[in-house]
């Protein structure tokens, strides 16, 4: 099995070099590009398994890069965004980015996001039984076990948990949840999603004050934070 290849696009040489160096220590093979144009060229040439890109860059920016990559490929794209650029994040997700990470970020965070995306693209999420530390979601039997206790969920709660669990480590937007859980039913509001997620969290989290599984993503939706057991 060859090393997964990652394309890093950022106009700052310091960030490029430290990210590529760190990725190398974790067994990833990485290419660096200084702007969107170079990034698109490198993508065509090398066909990487994942793209990490900044948004604000001179010339061809990150949004354009996402658009161009999405025309030809479904590889995971993680956006490096700046704080305060919340509308940028949402815009990037709309264009087809899979996740974002806010600068300044830690390498641990970045590697976790990369792992989550690699898992998704390797097709592991089709399993009907999801296992996380202290948590088993058995979708066939519609059964959830947390820390040895059975958790009784309503069908809506279970559907939400299934969507979040299958996308562990990635942000799931309100619109995603409404589309997948409520089948896009008219009049389903973000507040309805919040209501059901709130009751799901109360049942699921062993200590609701220190969440282990579900976190809100400000203005976006939710993220399942536990890492699946392979």
């Amino acid at each position, binding site marked *: 099995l060859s090393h997964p290849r990652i394309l890093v696009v950022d106009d*700052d040489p310091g960030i490029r070099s430290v990210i590529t160096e760190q990725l190398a220590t974790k067994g990833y093979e990485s290419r660096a590009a200084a702007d969107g144009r170079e990034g698109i060229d490198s993508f065509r040439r090398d066909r990487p398994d994942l793209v990490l890109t900044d948004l604000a860059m001179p010339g061809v920016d990150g949004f354009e890069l996402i658009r161009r990559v999405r025309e030809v490929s479904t590889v995971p794209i993680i956006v490096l965004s700046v704080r305060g650029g919340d509308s940028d994040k949402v815009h990037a997700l709309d264009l087809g980015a899979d996740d974002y990470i806010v600068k300044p970020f830690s390498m641990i965070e970045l590697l976790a996001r990369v792992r989550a995306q690699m898992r998704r693209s390797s097709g592991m999420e089709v399993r009907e039984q999801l296992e996380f530390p202290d948590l088993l979601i058995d979708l066939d039997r519609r059964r959830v076990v947390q820390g040895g206790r059975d958790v009784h969920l309503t069908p809506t709660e279970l559907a939400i948990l299934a969507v979040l669990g299958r996308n562990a480590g990635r942000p799931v937007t309100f619109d995603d949840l409404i589309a997948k*859980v409520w089948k896009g039913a008219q009049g389903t509001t973000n*507040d309805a999603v919040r209501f059901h997620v709130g009751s799901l969290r109360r049942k699921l989290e062993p200590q609701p*004050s220190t969440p282990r599984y579900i976190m*809100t993503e400000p203005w976006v939706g939710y993220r399942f934070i536990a890492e699946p057991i392979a």
Partner: protein
Amino acid sequence: MRSSGTAFLKGLGALALLAVVTGAALRLHVNASTAGFVYLIVILGIALWSGLTISLLSSIVAVGCYNFFFLPPLRTFTIQDPENWVALVAFFVASLVVSRLVVNARGQAEAARARRQEIEALYSLSIDLFAATSRVGALAEATMRVLTKVGAASGGLVLFGSSSYMQQVVAWSGESEDEIKDLIAGVGRHREPLEFPGPHGRDVFLPLNVGGHIGGVLVVRGSTATVRALESVAALVALAVERERFMAESAHVQALRESDALKTSILRAVSHDLTTPLTTIALQVESLRQKLGANPAAAGSINVLSEQSDRLRRRIENLLTLARLESGKFVPRPEPTPPADLFHTAREHLAALAERRPFEVQIDDDCPDAMVDPVLAVEILVNLIENADRVSPPGTPLRLVAHRHPVDSSRVRIEVLDEGPGIHQTTEPAERFLSEAEEEGDVGRRGLGLEIAQGLAAANRGEVSLSNRPDGGAAARLDLPAATIAAAAEVAV
């Protein structure tokens, strides 16, 4: 005495004219009625040419002559025929009425001319004044031109601050006696012009009505202009003052707008130019940790580096956020936010702190979500936790508590409880941090954390407060609006 001399000469002239007309009428043997008309025309002429007194005296003389020379018996002042009495009285009344009418009409014409001249003078003055005050700071120059125009020997313009005793001399010429200040203040208070004889003629103090208030006093000394004319001048000067104030204000607004634009562009540059190197530093520190982490001495330094660069980043971000909020470039976007997530994220932000100090989290079962901008709420919480950490003895836990507000059920109360020495009840919360910062010898940290927290909370319709807990230590409270969430749509699965 020139005017009384002129009147005397005019009187003599009138008598001479009457004598000539009488002589001519006698020579031509005109009858009594013709003579009466001729005399009336003469009186009309005299009234046109002289004043009321002379024309009245001339009327009396004319009545005498008419009676003496033309009404029988001739050459006597007696009248036999009662018809002639009627003629004489009619003539007298007619001459009186003619005199009055003519003199009145002439007076009105003169007054109209004077008014026209006054208006023309004011008009040219206003043009002058407004041309001169088209820029800020030209008021003094304009005032001096006004004073010259109204023929003043000296004077000036004094504007009031918050009271009539706060006087700002905009322009002044000539001497300035000690009591002038009080006179000016008095005029300002009584809102009435003051006029009295001064050393160089008449002195007039005129209050200036600037935007409904007495904004100052125009002092005109030694001018011959009437008070009424000067009041009009004062009204013009007041307009000029108002105009200048308005221009100064709009210049200020313009400057503010420009400085705002500058602030925004600096903000943008600063946020980009600081965030990128800080990200690089943070990543490089982590990479250092991997390379040198095995060496305990290096690991210690790296921990300090990482914690401090984190803190620097947060401070910069906080300040940028506050600046963006202030300039309206950033509007908080509240959304229902579970306190548990706030606590979780705040602890993630303070990873190094969380490693050396235990946290105890307690959230009431019925605690509602907070309706708050989640990113700002985390920043507030991080600042409160950092401040609590600074005053707490090493190893003691920090408690993070969330519950419904005890009084106002539409609010959520989030508390950071420390086991530090508490606060001095008498001092303001901000001062608490100030004194601690001084004790630490760290002047640059003065209350910044709390001030940032308060600023960010205010933007979220929240409040931050500090108090002592009965069981020791302090409680930093963040009160926020509670979110109301209803299950709007129903299950489709």
